[in-house]
């Protein structure tokens, strides 16, 4: 089965580049540009992995993560967080993120982290 990655990123050009990189690996990528619909989409589409930007309009990445971790249905969903600052990393860790990628990241790093996280 094709790996399904849900990407939440408000910067259109970063999102486009990441979609390209992940798609080339043969994965299916869907994208949302803001935080408000993420919970519904996760419940409806059941992605294998969530890549979540920390700073989002609508609902912050941390709030989304906390809501996911509080719901038994989505508690186990692997979440990779994109952070800009070291201090945010601690917050993301406390909120229950599985991996972190600091901006600016390298493309190879993203691919390697996704592989490591889903065990493929």
């Amino acid at each position, binding site marked *: 089965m094709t790996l399904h990655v849900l990407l939440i990123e408000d*910067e259109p*050009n*970063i999102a*486009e*580049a*990441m979609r*390209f*990189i992940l798609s*080339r690996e043969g994965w299916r990528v869907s994208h949302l540009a803001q935080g408000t619909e993420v919970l519904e989409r996760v419940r409806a589409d059941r992605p294998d992995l969530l890549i979540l930007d920390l*700073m989002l309009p609508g609902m912050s990445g941390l709030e989304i993560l906390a809501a996911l971790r509080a719901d038994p249905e989505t508690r186990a969903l692997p979440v990779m967080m994109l952070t*800009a*600052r070291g*201090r945010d990393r601690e917050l993301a860790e406390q909120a229950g993120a599985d991996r972190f990628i600091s*901006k*600016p*990241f*390298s*493309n190879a790093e993203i691919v390697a982290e996704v592989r490591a996280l889903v065990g493929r």
Partner: protein
Amino acid sequence: MPLSTLTGTRLRERRLAAGLRQADVAEAAGISASYLNLIEHNRRKVSPELIDRLAGILGLDRAALAGDEDAALVEDLRAAASRATPTLAELDRAEELVSRFPGWAELLVALDRRVQMLERAVEALNDRMSHDPHLSQALHEVLSSLSSVRATAAILAETEDLDPQWASRFHRNLHHDSERLAAGAEALVAYLDAGSGIAEQGIASPQEEVEDWLNRRGWIFTDAELASGCRDDVAALASTAARSLAQRLLAEAAADARALPETAFAAALAVTGPDPLSLADRFGADPLTVMRRLALRSDVAAGLVICDGSGTLTFRKPASGFPLPRFGAACPLWPLYTALGRPGQPVEALVSIAGQGGRTFRTVAWGQMQHPQGLRGPELRAAAMLILPAEPGAGAALPVGSSCRVCAKAECPARREPSILGLAL
């Protein structure tokens, strides 16, 4: 009047500094040389009359010899020592240091203040780095565009079979993001270069700046000066926050002066004395206004503290010999706080500063509530305490301190934290 135990030491230092012989000074003062010798070695108390004569002979201010002015310096030294943990200072010899090396003692206190100011400045800068929304926004912008540039450029460089349509799209993105990156970097540099002055960054606290200015002026303003707003004085203050504090203080004082004009107020004061309630009644003003008006007069010689509902001092005009804490909370025994908890009822009390030779002050305190936003707005409280010199032999006084850390009062039921003087004295 009880005198500091070290008046003798001070007397000896000043006599030697003046190059006068013990015998000559004793003769001029009408006492025996051996008696003067005992005084100089702090083995005899000196009467106020003798102090006056000796001060006259040595050509000194009486207060300087009796050590009135030094009490504040001693207090400041102890406060400085309390901030050094563990303190190695000989706390019980602070008075001796002040009397023998007043210049060094002043320097020590000045350095301690400077250290505190710099500590605050470091904190302010630290806060600025971690919490400044502009800086954080600018950095986020730079990192975002940089992320995009890096990811896009890597795709263009590393994807061998890139579809031409995709390639041109990524080129466009790259161009757009590099422009954004340049603009973001420029904004960041401009922000960091903006270099607001040292004073702006909190090197001196705005309150201290304003208090220094008021102390230099002796806290005296004429009604004409108040009406004009003292613009030059205010403009000379270094930080925006200090200028705004000073403006607020002056605006309040000007309003007070309009409510209680000088001529009428001086005439009423001559009749009633510094009685805030009776004066308030005469002018239909509130007692807080009267107390502020009294504090800014040279003929009353009153200190004044005002606090808000949290007990934080928002106005502090010092009275000689009544130390006010420079930072943090004051002594909970101050009648100021009794009045704060009992708004609308005057509190009059004699107090003495614990451990300072029993110098007594008459305090008059008043607390009141305000509702600046009306019926459904918040209730604000304020209390004020006038610190007046006490009449001699006025009676028993309540021992109070300035703040717990530097208070010598033993077994105090209101003590918040141990005193650094507890062991040493």
